[in-house]
């Protein structure tokens, strides 16, 4: 058994651009915005960066392939830049690369930047991704809302949930995120919504309406990581350290066997279990202060509470409606508004989640600051329920 990543690497600085419909900003502008904040926060210069990881999902409408785009936008001093593409989990995977590089001793200081420029397509929602030459010949020309909406039909089938009750519960997920997003000046959507608005919104993919779907946004986020001793030598105190970084990838079992019932995300359960073990968490419901999860759709967040063990199987509907995951609940979820309201620039989202945990743990989250959080969990999912990459990361205060 590997010794794991726990407390071997700390955050030195972070930055995050304003998310949203950034008609004003080019992809390069977004990267610079996040980078400037992170570098100022870290208090270092570019020459101190040993290597970079760059997450971006859709090169065709963004900045092209490979790592040059980041190096050129930030005029990095010819250091290694690895482009990471792992669907919507790319941001977390870029962090994993940077953290592992530092933990190995190969680098002293590394940066991970995630960026997506989605609003140059000319239409709302995600652009259609290319998936090679074979899959389009048999697989439906599917869109994300319908892939994730299937969680709802399978969940209903498994737990015999009244469809109206489930719709109310997923509406509550979105109402909560909008309420949180209203307190976040960097969020894409900053207005509260009502249950009536949710229930009456046009259907995008049965049973998901407009408010069950996350925003499609432009944005970038950056994190600079180093070893705790180096951070201390640079004058940093009260560090946020990585407790666990786990990533699980589907191997086709869910998609092709008859064993998976479609009501949960198999990889999320595997990644969560490994992350809890790596972080030494035995009672997640007691020990985790807050979560940022991959709420690409309201139903995803609901079933994720079960995948992470924060709700018992079949009980997330009740827990959500009881407000367990609200800002004033036991384990607040998406305190920054989540993908739903902060926005979802794909390659940046995993790093944006980390950004919120970092602010909260440092007491710098402004109007939405939670009281004395100690452990944050980040769940970042790429792909679709039946075939995906799922990252679960845990961060917390430096052991004192």
């Amino acid at each position: 058994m590997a010794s794991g990543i726990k407390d071997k690497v700390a955050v030195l600085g972070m930055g995050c651009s304003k998310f949203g419909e950034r008609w004003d900003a080019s992809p390069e502008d977004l990267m610079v915005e996040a980078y400037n904040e992170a570098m100022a926060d870290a208090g270092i210069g570019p020459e101190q960066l040993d290597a970079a990881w760059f997450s971006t999902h859709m090169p065709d409408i963004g900045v092209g392939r490979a790592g040059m785009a980041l190096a050129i936008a930030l005029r990095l001093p010819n250091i290694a830049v690895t482009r990471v593409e792992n669907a919507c989990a790319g941001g977390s995977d870029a962090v994993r690369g940077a953290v592992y590089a530092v933990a190995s001793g190969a680098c002293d200081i590394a940066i991970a930047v995630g960026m997506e420029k989605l609003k140059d397509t000319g239409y709302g929602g995600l652009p259609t991704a290319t998936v090679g030459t074979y899959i389009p010949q048999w697989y439906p020309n599917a869109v994300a809302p319908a892939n994730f909406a299937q969680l709802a039909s399978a969940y209903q089938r498994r737990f015999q949930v009244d469809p109206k009750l489930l719709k109310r519960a997923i509406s509550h997920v979105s109402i909560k995120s909008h309420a949180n997003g209203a307190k976040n000046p960097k969020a894409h959507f900053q207005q509260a919504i009502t249950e009536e608005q949710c229930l009456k919104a046009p259907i995008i993919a049965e049973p998901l309406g407009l408010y069950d779907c996350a925003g499609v946004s432009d944005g970038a986020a950056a994190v600079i990581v180093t070893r705790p001793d180096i951070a201390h030598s640079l004058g940093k105190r009260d560090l946020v350290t990585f407790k666990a970084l786990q990533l699980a990838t589907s191997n086709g079992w869910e998609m092709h066997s008859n064993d998976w019932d479609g009501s949960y995300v198999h990889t999320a359960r595997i990644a969560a279990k490994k992350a809890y073990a790596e972080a030494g968490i035995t009672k997640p419901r007691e020990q985790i202060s807050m979560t940022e999860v991959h709420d690409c759709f309201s139903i995803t967040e609901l079933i994720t509470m079960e995948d992470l063990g924060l709700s018992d199987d079949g009980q997330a509907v009740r827990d959500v409606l009881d407000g367990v995951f609200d800002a004033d609940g036991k384990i607040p979820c998406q305190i920054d508004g989540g993908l739903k309201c902060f926005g979802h620039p794909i390659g940046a989202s995993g790093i944006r989640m980390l950004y919120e945990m970092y602010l909260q743990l440092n007491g710098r989250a402004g109007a939405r600051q939670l009281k004395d959080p100690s452990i944050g969990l980040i769940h970042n999912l790429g792909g679709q329920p039946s075939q995906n990459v799922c990252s679960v990361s845990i961060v917390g205060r430096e052991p004192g």
Partner: protein
Amino acid sequence: MIGIVGHGGYVPWLRLSRRTVVDANAWYAPQFASKAKGTRAMVNFDEDSLTMAVAAARDCLGAGEDRDHVRGVYLASNTLPFVERLNAGIVCEALTLRDDVEALDLGGSQRTALSAVSQAIARVKSNNGGNVLVLAADTRKTRAASAQELDYGDGAGAVLIGNKGVLAEFLGAGTVNVDFIDHFRASGEDIDYHWEERWVRDEGLSKLAPKAILAALETANVKAGQIDHFIFPSTFARIDRQIAKTCGIKAEAVVNTLSESVGDTGTAHGLLLLSLVLEKALPGQLILLAQFGSGAEALVFRVTDAVRSFRPAKGVSQWIGRGVEEKNYTKFLSFNDQLRLERGMRGEQDRKTALTTAYRHKSALMGLVAGRCEVTGTVHFPPSRISYDQGKPLQDTQKPYKLAERRGRVLSWSAEYLSFHKSPPHTYGQVDFEGGGRILMEFTDIAKGDIASDTNVEMVFRIKDVDERRAFTRYFWKATPIRSVKPAAKTAKE
């Protein structure tokens, strides 16, 4: 004895209401007011002559695994998707037939299917065995506010010709070849050009069809008055009765041509009606099937005692019985490329097909052949070298395993309005197959509420995508709900 050893057909699920069409066009074409009766069969957005031919073939051949008895596939149609690329060859792949089957595309006239039957009989005779599957299908494009739009229908027919287990013995044929141009369509054109109806009726059908019919009766050594079922498809009302009278065939032998419900399915209509007649025909009865087009062709059959031993998988009567009335005229126009609807930017997606990939995986794509692990019994679609079995990934243990004739059950689904789709909402989900296997696939021929978790489904061969830039159609399988069908008796009165 050589003759028909199997038969089947296909009528698409959708039936366009003629009233809807006539009312929509009344401002422009009030002359069609009297045609506002009944329905015509129309293909769904993902059907064409090829997919209908496959459906009719499956209706005829049934769900059995062994199709090696089929030694030839003759596909008669004037509306096949490809001018070059053997359409019958695609049918063979969909039916998972052997690659030494004789496959032919035939076209050129409305009577081509009957010519194909004659050729099939000749082949069986000369080869002394092996069955030949004759398929006919048409989806004829028509202009809005034309008579053909109301008269035509889409459909397919199938007969299997052989010399073992003959249901209807072939007795004789008659042919008349005359370059009588009632209508024509030049290569590359979509829609037929027609000459005056009265001339076509009086100089064409009335004079040429009886020649072929009388020739067939003479070859068959059958008297016209003995015919029990006279099948003569035509869009001219009562012409079949008039020709029967001319030839001396009993008026009560004239078979209803389904103009009220299906419409005239062109090349396919003779075989479609023949299959419907064979569902009910009694041993010893005589059938005369004739079709007009660049002359005329006629075939005579005698029903044998074996006729009761065969049932198509569903049968034309059931296909007719399960139809639903379609009252959206613009849907018909859109599906038939007569109305260009706004697609939005998502409709701009390139649907180019990598032909190398298509060929490499043709068994999975065209035949819906999965891989079944010989050790664990688990089914994999698409087939793969390494099995997915958790913790015991076996390698190179999968053998071909056909899924097309197996039923499935819906595990999860959704219906979305986001992607460009010709018939929204685009509905897809995970289907678990009886006996194992799972595919996330599209659903078709559905109305709101037809798909839910645990809905039982069956497979249909359909258009997957059309690459309009390169004019290439690709095909795959979709799931459709297994429908309980109205009893055949109800529709037999047609």
